[in-house]
């Protein structure tokens, strides 16, 4: 049994349908009409202890809704969530002391309290032993530099500072499981990197299980081995980051800088000229069909070449293509959501 087991999880939101005009307003008041909006549609997945899983998908895919159900603050319409034997919604209080959550779009801290007071309150609420509290505060200060704004009220913090304060607050009680919903939203590159490093370190040192939602693929590449992609409420991919690169990242681009500007160029079959700039030409080919060394040998024998680089597509580009529907998953890798994928794919350790 995995630490987190999600089975046939579904969430419908009820939307009020407001009619237009005065007559419509009266009608809506007397006979309210509802429309159901399925935000999460029958999803299944499981997460092992100590795993760090990326949870991605386009805007409105149902990520936050899923995270809210996992943290127990939103009740599922149907299906079940088991977290180490507890149901997050039914055993909310018990479960809450084992989990931590960071919602990047909204702070969990007390707006008017100085940061230091917030931590004191949390220590009291979670009954954190004095020694553990001090150790953690020291560690968070080393890694996140929270000391710098400890005496300021939360409402005065910059976004980056607030996020660091929020992350420290969510981890203060050494939770077994932590949910991050866009913890790097709106941060600069340095701050993002700092937070990634921190999250990785906590995961490694405390063996904390983590689910990480983000729109920045670099976050996922740098921190998670596995990722789950959700779109329109259903899971369309659940497997390793490597695997997706392996499968869909087969194209390579060779950038060749020639000694002089060439108007036309002879290319072997299967190689496509996708762009050119000054003396540079961008040549795209499939790694399985064409060997890079052969292509280079052919080009250098015919032309005078100054510089060569080969690039592989970034995960971001692959994901973009997936969101846009450009990639059709074969069942081998994506699986259908009815079968549990973690059973199909061995979970990376």
């Amino acid at each position, binding site marked *: 049994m995995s630490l987190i087991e999600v089975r046939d999880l579904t969430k419908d939101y009820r939307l009020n349908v407001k009619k237009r005009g005065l007559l419509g307003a009266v009608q809506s008041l007397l006979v309210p009409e509802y429309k159901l909006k399925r935000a999460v549609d029958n999803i299944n997945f499981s997460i092992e202890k100590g795993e760090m899983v990326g949870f991605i998908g386009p805007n409105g895919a149902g990520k936050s809704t899923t995270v809210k159900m996992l943290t127990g*603050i939103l009740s599922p319409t149907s299906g079940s969530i088991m977290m180490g034997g507890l149901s997050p919604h039914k055993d909310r209080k018990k479960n809450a002391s084992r989990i931590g959550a960071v919602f990047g779009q909204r702070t969990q801290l007390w707006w008017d309290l100085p940061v230091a007071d917030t931590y004191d309150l949390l220590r009291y609420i979670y009954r954190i032993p004095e020694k553990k509290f001090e150790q953690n505060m020291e560690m968070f200060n080393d890694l996140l530099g929270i000391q710098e704004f400890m005496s300021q009220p939360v409402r005065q913090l910059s976004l980056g500072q607030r996020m660091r304060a929020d992350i420290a607050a969510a981890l203060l009680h050494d939770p077994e499981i932590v949910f991050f919903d866009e913890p790097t939203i709106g941060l600069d590159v340095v701050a993002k990197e700092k937070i990634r490093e921190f999250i990785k370190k906590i995961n490694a040192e405390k063996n904390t299980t983590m689910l990480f939602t983000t729109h920045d693929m670099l976050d996922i590449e740098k921190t998670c081995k596995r990722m789950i992609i959700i779109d329109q409420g259903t899971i369309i991919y659940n497997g390793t980051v490597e695997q997706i690169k392996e499968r869909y990242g087969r194209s390579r681009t060779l950038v060749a800088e020639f000694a002089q500007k060439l108007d036309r160029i002879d290319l072997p079959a299967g190689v496509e000229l996708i762009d050119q700039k000054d003396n540079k030409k961008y040549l795209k080919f499939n790694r399985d069909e064409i060997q890079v060394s052969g292509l280079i040998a052919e080009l250098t024998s015919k032309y005078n070449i100054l510089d060569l680089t080969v690039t592989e597509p970034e995960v971001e580009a692959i994901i973009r293509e997936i969101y846009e529907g450009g990639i059709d998953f074969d069942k081998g890798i994506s699986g259908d959501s009815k079968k549990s994928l973690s059973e199909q794919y061995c979970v990376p350790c």
Partner: protein
Amino acid sequence: MYRVDYFAGVINTLVMIFVNIAIWKAIYEADDNLGGVQLKVVMTYIALAFLMQCIFVMEDYFIESKVTSGLISSDLLKPISFRAYVFSYNVGSSVFRVLMQLLPTLVISIFLFKLLPPFSTEMGILFFFSAVLGYLVLYCLNFIVWMSSFWFYYTFSLVTIKDALVMVLSGALIPLWFLPQWLFNFVKLTPFESIFFTPISIYLGQVPAADIKTAIIKQVAWIVVLALAGHLLWNAAKHKLVLQGG
């Protein structure tokens, strides 16, 4: 800011007592033995009612603002009972008001309005006990109104109706014995009577010793019934709750 609030609270209570007593004095000038109750007794009733009201203030929009803003999610993420949290928040501020507002106002009222002492020491103790129960009845009633925000989001109209009913039917403004008999009989069937009227009547010795037990049991019964209703509403609300925002 707090200091201004504090003085405003004290002065507000004193002015309310003063104005209401003045009204009753005027009424008594026309008829000096209204319903067989002496003016002195009515004056004490009014003073006590307003003194109690200054502690029985509760935050009517505390839950609503958390629900409409979605901030309730931060509370629900913590391993604490949300209901216990709301309750201690209200009790905490009431205790604070006992120390900061009630005590000074009480001292001034004793001199200014010549409050009668409790009918007997025993009645004084029972009054205190009954007043605590009255507070709980009001809290449980309020909790039900507050919970409606999970369904309606905005509770201003319900809160206003509730405030008006409490004002008139609980004896906060008018001693209930002045109500028309049919209305008085009706109020006896509602929880409102238990809030202010029961404790104050005990203080004034208006409840026969034999009936005190019944009056207090009635208060407890209302607490149980209302708390149970609140509990059911809370359980329904947990499933109903839709968290606003990203």
